[in-house]
């Protein structure tokens, strides 16, 4: 199989499982206990926290391990909006992941004012719209570093500067779930107070993520219970998950340069070969402002659902970008915000490359796609 759906999830790196396996065996203690078994677990957890913090330019106690990217986003947006018993205002964008958008909709139901800033035709956030919505009521601003569907990147530093100049007390969050694998992220360079990551997007295990929480930022917890993670996230520590996640973060960081080079050449050869066969192909993100691993394309006249099946028959795994519970392709809210009508949105496919991609996978994928298109156009 040629797997080009790495943005959905990517294979676990073997060294990650190696690092995790002691935690399925000899290290079994509850990190909150006070005996030797607990200490072994606690030591592993806190070491993981320190190493995660170091990679992001943060302090260890600023790292909150969560049950994944969705939980990190929920804790960030809901936690900041409801902190201190407030019903603070939320400013975000129309193209965020559902983990942010649905949390914002939930908060709106609780009485929090919510504003969704628009984007241009390439998916770049309208900064005037966003900045114009920020006032003294704004509790949290959430803008994703890069979009999970199209790969379009947002100017996070510029946005956080604008936010802080209008309301220094507003908490700035970025969902960096999709971008960590290819981009060096430093919380101070980005100027963010909160940052979400999910381990399985870069070779770690599913079911674990983290939220960076800048020291001094108060969050109302989403999960109530035993008060782990300094009261910010209750629940017995997932030590195995945290260890695996941090191992994946380190491997990813060490491998980024190679990743960008291999994936970059795979993608450009893929798109060049494809453009020769499909001259009216459209790339749905700015060429100089998108993640190196994403190729989100519109192939005029071809319904993506049909093409997905034909590619699956040729063992090329890709995605339409978003799907509902039953697996049917939904109309993407991201493309709708970019001004796509239903028909155009249904002609789009996402090819996403990953750490297992070799440069020659690009032309190979293009050849399969061209073959699958035969008779459809």
């Amino acid at each position, binding site marked *: 199989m040629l797997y080009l759906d790495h943005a959905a999830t990517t294979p676990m790196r073997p060294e990650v499982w190696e690092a995790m396996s002691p935690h399925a065996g000899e290290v079994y203690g509850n990190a909150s206990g006070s005996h030797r078994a607990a200490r072994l677990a606690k030591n592993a957890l806190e070491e993981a926290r320190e190493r995660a913090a170091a990679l992001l330019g943060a302090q260890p106690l600023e790292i909150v391990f969560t049950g994944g990217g969705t939980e990190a986003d929920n804790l960030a947006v809901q936690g900041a909006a409801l902190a201190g018993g407030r019903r603070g205002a939320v400013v975000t964008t129309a193209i965020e992941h559902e983990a942010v958008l649905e949390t914002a909709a939930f908060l709106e139901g609780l009485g929090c004012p919510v504003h969704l800033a628009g984007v241009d035709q390439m998916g770049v956030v309208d900064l005037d719209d966003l900045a114009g919505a920020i006032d003294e009521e704004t509790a949290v601003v959430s803008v994703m570093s890069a979009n999970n569907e199209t790969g379009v990147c947002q100017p996070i530093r510029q946005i956080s500067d604008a936010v802080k100049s209008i309301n220094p007390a507003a908490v700035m969050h970025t969902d960096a779930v999709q971008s960590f694998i290819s981009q060096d992220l430093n919380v101070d360079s980005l100027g963010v107070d909160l940052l979400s990551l999910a381990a399985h997007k870069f070779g770690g295990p599913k079911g674990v993520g983290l939220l960076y929480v800048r020291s001094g930022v108060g969050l109302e917890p989403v999960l109530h219970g035993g008060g782990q993670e300094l009261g910010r996230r209750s629940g017995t520590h997932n030590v195995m998950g945290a260890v695996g996640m941090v191992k994946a973060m380190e491997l990813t960081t060490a491998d980024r340069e190679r990743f960008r080079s291999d994936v970059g050449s795979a993608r450009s050869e893929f798109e060049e070969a494809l453009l020769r066969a499909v001259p009216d192909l459209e790339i749905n993100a700015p060429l100089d402002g998108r993640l190196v691993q994403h190729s989100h394309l519109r192939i005029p006249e071809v319904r993506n*659902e*049909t093409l997905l*099946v034909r590619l699956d*028959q040729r063992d090329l795994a890709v995605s339409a970008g978003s799907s509902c519970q*039953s*697996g049917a392709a*939904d109309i993407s809210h991201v493309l709708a915000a970019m001004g796509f009508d*239903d028909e155009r949105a249904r002609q789009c496919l996402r090819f996403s490359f990953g750490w297992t991609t070799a440069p020659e996978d690009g032309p190979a994928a293009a050849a399969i796609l061209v073959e699958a298109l035969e008779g459809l156009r």
Partner: protein
Amino acid sequence: MRGVGARRGGGDSSVAAAMMVEQGHEGIGATLKLWQGPNGEAPTAGCCTVSDSEDARRVAAQLDIPYYVLDYTDDFMSGVVDRFIGDYFSGLTPNPCVECNRTVKFSRFLDQAAEFGCDVLVTGHYARTRQDDSGWHLLKGVDPTKDQSYVLHMLGQEELERVRFPVGEQSKAETRTYAERLGLRTANKPDSQDICFVGDGNYRDFLRSQADEATRPGPIVDTDGEHLGTHEGVIDFTIGQRKGLGVALGEPRYVIGIEPSSATVTLGRREDLATSAFSVDSTGWVAGDPPPPGTLEVKVRYKSDPVPGLVVPTSDGASVTFDQPQGAIAPGQAAVFYDADEVIGGGTIVAT
């Protein structure tokens, strides 16, 4: 041969898919997502629930064939639901299964199946197809209690060549036994409902939820035009209805007419319902060309027995004359013409 099995999550389509796979054909499984609530939620009853597509997925896994959920909500809304609503408000009695087969399953989906590289579309309908020197023929299913050829009458030569109905060759009991032998989890599922998008609700509640027009009151009159009472919307009535009329007259009365522009419902006696002639449009002939005028068996509802009638094809449809007047001929329903077990054609009843 590569086939695509279309399922509504029902046991019949699972068995149809299994029969094709066991005969050695390559296949893919697909569920058409036809309907969702206003906020995109899956229905809780009917054929498009999440648990239905889960059952279908499990059956496909058991058969070791790929499985997809395909989004047909837009086509189903424009081709079936909007028309269903419009027809009811026009005083007609629509058959959404016929429209779904005509505009979704055996048109666009049949084309998509070809794009998947499939030679045939396999469904769990109880009907049979045969090919001889004169072309393709559509026959009733072997099990007279389950025959679904009525809702398939619009299939012509081009479609029949590309469809297969394996369960139509056997009885419902045999299908259930087959499903049990394969251990298909859907073996004991109840049959899917007729109006899938209405779910477990009543279709009148559904119509009320769609438009205010549904609750426009109007007069109930007898055949002499005498006022008998008022009603709360024509959607509460279909031609031939006897119960729930909202007026007590001491003897059985039936709805014999619905006039939507004045929202007038006319009641009459059983004999007033009787019709000896009507015409149809949207007519299709299985053979392609219309047959010569002649007597055929005519079935005017899914659940009614066919009766002999003189069928005369016209330039844009057909006219039908019965030997004996028949009751409850409802405009909007399909009239299907049979020669013994064979479907000759059919159309939509327009006038009586």
